[in-house]
């Protein structure tokens, strides 16, 4: 019954995403251009280094990491903040709240169809290409299992962060400024633009305590380090799971108290 409700929402999202006639090609070209840019940038960066290995990473390690990171970010791209902000500004949120499904779940399942399409159309092809090009530099085994599990958590954590930022729009009456700050914070502190391994140690210690690094850094460490022991893997997963639990409760709580605020003020 309720599975049907969700699956039909997901199907609608998939259908919608496939309507993009040329968009898929344009997006792919954009992603390739981005890869081209970071390839040349990091090649030039490594050319200036004294040794081919910097902070335990070679140029090809860095590239593999960054390619995966960008396609992870790509697949997890969400419009939740814009949706929420607009429906708050227009007052439509009052109607959305009448649905027979919690607002948070509705936003999640409404958007996830697009994420699934992106996973299939961008992440999977990218991953396959990387495996072929890197000629088996990444060993596949149980690490794949951990990666998939962790990437799933990343998607949900990313959603919770977006949902909380969307909730902030209830107070600010503005979307662009709030959203852009979220985008750059997530990009920088998740390790999507510069691998966290290259961060200065003092900053690295702080960044590893934040939830953002669990979005990109955690799943990628699990995938790219098949040599990790089970113990190491669970140590990596622990902060992610902790953040998942914290954000699960906090995002719901924050939304509910904010909602009370706007209903009291009469929208």
């Amino acid at each position: 019954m309720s599975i049907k409700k969700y699956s039909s929402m997901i199907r609608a999202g998939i259908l919608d995403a496939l309507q993009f006639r040329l968009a898929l090609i344009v997006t792919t070209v954009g992603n390739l251009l981005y890869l081209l840019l970071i390839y040349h940038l990091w090649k030039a960066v490594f050319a200036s280094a004294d040794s081919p290995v910097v902070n335990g990473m070679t140029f090809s390690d860095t590239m593999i990491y960054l390619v995966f990171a960008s396609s992870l970010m790509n697949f997890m791209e969400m419009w939740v903040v814009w949706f929420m902000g607009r429906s708050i500004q227009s007052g439509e949120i009052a109607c959305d709240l009448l649905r027979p499904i919690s607002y948070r779940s509705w936003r999640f399942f409404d958007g996830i169809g697009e994420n699934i399409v992106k996973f299939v159309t961008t992440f999977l092809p990218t991953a396959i290409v990387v495996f072929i090009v890197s000629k088996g530099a990444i060993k596949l085994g149980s690490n794949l299992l951990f990666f998939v599990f962790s990437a799933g958590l990343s998607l949900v954590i990313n959603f919770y962060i977006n949902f909380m930022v969307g909730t902030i729009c209830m107070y600010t009456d503005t979307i662009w400024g709030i959203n852009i700050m979220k985008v750059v914070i997530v990009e920088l502190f998740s390790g999507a633009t510069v691998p966290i391994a290259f961060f200065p140690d003092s900053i690295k210690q702080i960044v590893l305590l934040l939830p953002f690094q669990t979005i990109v850094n955690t799943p990628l460490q699990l995938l790219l380090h098949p040599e990790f022991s089970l113990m190491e893997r669970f140590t990596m997963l622990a902060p992610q799971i902790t953040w998942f639990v914290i954000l699960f409760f906090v995002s719901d709580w924050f939304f509910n108290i904010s909602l009370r605020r706007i209903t009291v003020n009469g929208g």
Partner: protein
Amino acid sequence: MNMKKGILFYLRIYRKIVVQDIKSKMSYRADFIISMIGMIFTNICGALGFWLIFQRFPSIDGWNYNEMMFLYGFSLISATPAQCLFDNNWNLRIVVYDGSFIKYCFRPINLFFYYMSEVFDVKGLGQFLFGIIAVAYSWNKLSLPFHWYSLPLFIFMALSASLFVIALLNLASATCFWLVHSFFALQLSNTLRDFAKYPITIFGLTIRNLLTFVIPVAFMAFYPSMPFLRETQVQWQTYLTPVFGIFFLYISYKVWMKGALAYDGTGN
């Protein structure tokens, strides 16, 4: 009846609209302040990315941290006119798809002008401010010479470079007149603009030519910065910046207008 309208006519209207627009924006102070903070914050994080790289690596293909900051600052400055004056491009697809673009077609003035005049994006000034600070900081750190002509030349070069940014934005937004989901074209144009922040010497010859002649992103910061950054290594492309910029802007204007005039008001 001859209704030839000169540049003064347009300037007067533009000034009037912008003054009113800014006045009304000031009444939404929270939005204004948060957008401004968001803009500067984005620029700072962009710079932070460079800073992080340079914590572990001494240079990028012979370009040091300060030189990179100069290029970054220049690219922000040259992006300012597009951000401030042509920001309504970002709304174009929305008004085209919901059919309200038609309301711009009934005025006896230039359609492109009328549409763009509607929005003046103040937060672009935040970007401008950060760009100026970045350039001034690196200019000082690099001890670059400051001649009597440096400032006018810098303004001239920044303005020339800005034409490319405007043109690229026009072209990307105009795609909505033909495509059903044109947001991706705007995203692509943003990705392309990322190339402007880096010295094109890090690329191979093919890409360099591509970025010069096909998608002239290298003119947004790299070529026009050379007279200041590497006075002795100025290439012929630098001198071409203004001419090529006007040409590219003209093309983008023509494409935009062609799309707008083909618009039938039904949203495709």
